[in-house]
């Protein structure tokens, strides 16, 4: 779908090539595309905001809308913490560390310290304290495997690629009564001077997850709306298998993603993402 290329990595050069693509073949940016996508979203999603009480928090839409979460008033609910989510949160901290400093020392300790420094570690630390010794040992092994995989496969990026991690995007719509938001694990490339020029990278949460690309394309849509230029490439890096999958970000893919967002966001409520009220604030701190 959309010409996604899956490659088993052999060398750092393979990863760099996957992120870079063919520079000569990058499309010219059509500034009207981003404007058109925004207008399309405004038209289709504005009815959601009708009837929103004055002063109510905006309707928050994130990537989970594409996997069945129900859109509702107020800030996006965070999913309940579970081991797989904690592993993903900690893996992302390690990926940031590796991209930024080029080294990881003690994976679990480094990731927890990093999370604590960002002020979001309390809920995860509390969650870890509820784990059994065996579960905690397994988590430590998983993180060590992932850290080793990252260190083995991920190349050092030239600083001139301007690598920036945990890039948060928020797109207000309907006069700010709806927001679409997401966080890109890694964004590389200088802003567009006419050609598509940036590549977004997502760390694979779990090997073989079919919905991962939905989220990546959602982020590509946000980046297009934010910067006015569609990214050149999008990639998913799996630290366990060392596989990178990359694709060109095409107008077709952006439009298809937008249609999915609209379809999912505007359909009547289905299975809602249920979050216990008592857990809500803790999750927001954690994720």
């Amino acid at each position: 779908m959309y010409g996604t290329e899956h490659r088993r990595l052999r060398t750092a050069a393979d990863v760099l090539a996957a992120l870079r693509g063919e520079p000569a073949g990058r499309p010219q940016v059509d500034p009207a595309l981003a404007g058109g996508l925004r207008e399309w979203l405004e038209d289709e999603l504005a009815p959601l905001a009708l009837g929103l009480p004055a002063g109510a928090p905006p309707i928050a839409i994130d990537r989970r809308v594409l996997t069945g979460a129900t859109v509702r008033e107020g800030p996006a609910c965070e999913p309940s913490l579970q081991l797989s989510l904690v592993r993903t949160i900690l893996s992302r901290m390690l990926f940031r560390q590796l991209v930024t400093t080029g080294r990881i020392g003690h994976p679990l300790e480094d990731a927890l310290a990093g999370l604590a420094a960002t002020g979001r570690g309390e809920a995860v630390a509390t969650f870890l304290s509820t784990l059994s010794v065996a579960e905690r040992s397994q988590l430590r092994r998983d993180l060590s495997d992932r850290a080793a995989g990252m260190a083995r496969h991920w190349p050092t990026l030239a600083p001139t690629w301007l690598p920036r991690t945990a890039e948060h995007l928020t797109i207000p719509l309907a006069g700010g009564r709806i927001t679409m938001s997401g966080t890109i694990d890694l964004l590389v490339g200088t802003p567009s001077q006419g050609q598509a020029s940036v590549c977004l990278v997502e760390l694979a949460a779990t090997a073989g997850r079919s919905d991962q690309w939905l989220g990546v394309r959602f982020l590509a849509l946000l980046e297009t709306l934010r910067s006015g230029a569609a990214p050149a490439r999008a990639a998913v890096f799996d630290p366990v298998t060392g596989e990178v999958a990359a694709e060109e970000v095409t107008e077709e893919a952006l439009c298809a993603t937008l249609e999915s967002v609209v379809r999912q966001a505007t359909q009547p409520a289905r299975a809602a993402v249920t979050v216990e009220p008592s857990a809500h604030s803790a999750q927001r701190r954690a994720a």
Partner: protein
Amino acid sequence: MTVALSPMCLPRARSLTDALTAPSAGPAPVLDPVLRSSLSDGLARLESRLLAGRRLRVDEYLLSTAGAYGPTAPGSASTEPFRWSARTARRSVGLAAVRACYHGIHRTPAEAVAGVLERLAEDAGGSTGRGGSLGRWLAGLPSGARAAVQADAVTWATRLHIALDWDSLPPGTVVGGRDEWWDCPSARRIGLRGRAEVRTSTAGGDASAAGPHRPVLFCLRPGVPGPTGRTELALPALVAALASPTGAPPARVIGWWPACGRAIVLEVDEKVLTRAAASVVGAVGARLGAGLGGGARKEATAR
């Protein structure tokens, strides 16, 4: 007057820089002495609600949250005590890094941030490191936490680095620089802070000198512009005018919200300053529980 820059103008750095340094239209306004004294009087009336020993800093954060959250506690004006974190450190480190890039010391934000952190670590180990300083805090962090600080600072610095066309800025441009302060003379426990990431001048001028080319400010803002976005941009202009011996404000302030790619150009005139003063009194009143309505705010800054 405010203008929102079209998001369709690419490259974005060029359009932001052009908007920032464009010649200013019309004569430079001067802060009306009546507005200055009425602002002082308004704040003086509210100061009595501050608990003994407390001080209140009026900044963009207070303007954006005072109405939303109301008083934190009667008269306390207290917020969370300041603590270093990746979030609170990223601006200091990031600004130093972008400054280093602007002056040609480093080529990229990533290299510059690493250099800034290295220097801070050296200072913390020497005689210049003070207790509670950023350097001392960093020196005490485990490696994973230091990496998180570095990563946050690189992302922040890159957002500023790619926002402007640095080679096109006039001589005398200052990256970061000191915050401007105005301590209300009749309410000494209330101070206004004006903060901007870049201070430069309209095209062809010299930002460090007075003359026909007027100063302009560039502010990097988090998230998305909220209902108080324009007022937040007007605050550094008001503080600059209050703190200036001549009462002259900057010609314009540009706010740039990289998370959503929106920019607001605020041309500073008398109306902007008057509204900003009213908003300051209103926000202080809300924070201190005075419950000032629109009418009362007008009275507090009546001209």
